[in-house]
């Protein structure tokens, strides 16, 4: 339990710093905006209490907001993800996975379970985020293009980071 808290704290700082100092300055053709900070919420252990998940998502969103000069947008989108994440876990993961408090990552499960879980939540997050940020249906198709491009790049980035930074430890159970 203690280890989880320290690890979570470390993840929070590292991911937020990566997002703020590296990715926020990145612009690829104007349509690809990677937002890796969602990963922090997606990789929380499967039986994290729901209230804790919500508070952590709000805190993460708010931190990113403060450093990108637009207060509220990231927090609103990520809090919604914090709410529906348990639902998606019960859809995509087997009952055994949910009971044995595991962190969703390639090391713990097959790519075919991991990828749909990540991609669908990332898409949903981007959809909410860009809808709130732009708040204008007259540019609907441009917004949709932006959402799809960003979903692809964020998902790829999460897969890459997961592959390189999450240690492949032996399953303990």
């Amino acid at each position: 339990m203690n280890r989880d808290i320290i690890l979570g704290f470390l993840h929070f700082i590292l991911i937020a710093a990566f997002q703020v100092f590296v990715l926020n300055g990145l612009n690829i053709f104007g349509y690809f905006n990677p937002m890796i900070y969602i990963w922090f919420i997606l990789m929380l252990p499967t039986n994290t209490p729901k209230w804790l998940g919500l508070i952590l998502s709000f805190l993460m969103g708010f931190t990113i907001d403060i450093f990108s000069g637009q207060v509220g947008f990231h927090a609103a989108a990520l809090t919604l993800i914090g709410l529906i994440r348990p639902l998606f876990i019960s859809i995509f993961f087997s009952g055994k996975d949910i009971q044995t408090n595991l962190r969703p990552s390639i090391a713990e499960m097959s790519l075919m379970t991991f990828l749909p879980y990540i991609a669908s939540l990332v898409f949903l997050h981007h959809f909410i985020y860009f809808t709130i940020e732009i708040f204008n249906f007259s540019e609907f198709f441009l917004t949709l293009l932006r959402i799809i491009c960003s979903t692809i790049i964020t998902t790829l980035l999460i897969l890459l980071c997961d592959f390189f930074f999450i240690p492949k430890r032996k399953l303990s159970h």
Partner: protein
Amino acid sequence: MRNLIRFLKRYSYIFLFIFLEGLSIYIISQNSFYQGSAITSFANEIAGNVNTKTYNISRYFTLGSSNEALVKENARLRSMIESSYVKYQHKTFQYNDTIYKQQFEYIDAKVIQKTINKRNNYFILNKGRVHGVTNNMGVISPNGIVGVVVNVSSNFSLVMSVLHQDSRPNIKNQRTKISGTLVWEGGDYSSGKLVDIPSSIPLKIGDTIITSGFSQDFPEGIMVGKIKNFKKDKGTGFYVVDIKFSVDYNKLEYVYIVKNFFKEEQVQLTKDIKNE
């Protein structure tokens, strides 16, 4: 009663969600355009300090190109000072003090944080209220137009970039003097769009677009960009014009905040008319 408590306990996280989501939306609604609340100013103060530190590290990597830009500007300014001109007509200089009155003053500032990849983009500058910056001041760079100050804390200021859906500066064609409005529709940060230009007067690809000076925020003649492409909109009788910005907003580092000494007088004048 017990059932009610059990119900509340079971779904307490829903209430927490509603609270947090409501809080986010409240903050957004408070800050949607001017971002003027105390929270934002405070946040800018903190974020500004952190970003100054990271900027101090990262600017070493761009020293070369910014030096080059500064040298170029120095050269341009040096060519404009009095000593580079021959005194041709003594009369003009004699009455200098009473003929000319300064209208614009420039406060130099550094960009310490910027976004260019959002639909609505902002800059944060390292000059604030203590340096004399106030809301609605124009911001320009050596290469052209940048944006308008929308929020000021004591040491930093937030600038609404021209890459923003609410930014609609007035511009004109340097050759034909016909004026219009600059808008940005998202996507590529190096090109924007001009609207409200009547299609009765012919345009040319490569025409230079400058600020018109009709709004009080910018002096006349600040570079905006060059016409890249244009077509007639058959329904309205106006052109739809694509331009390439003269400023590379991704590399923006040094800017000038424009202070207009006559602004209040100008604003007051239009206000008087409206009141009648």
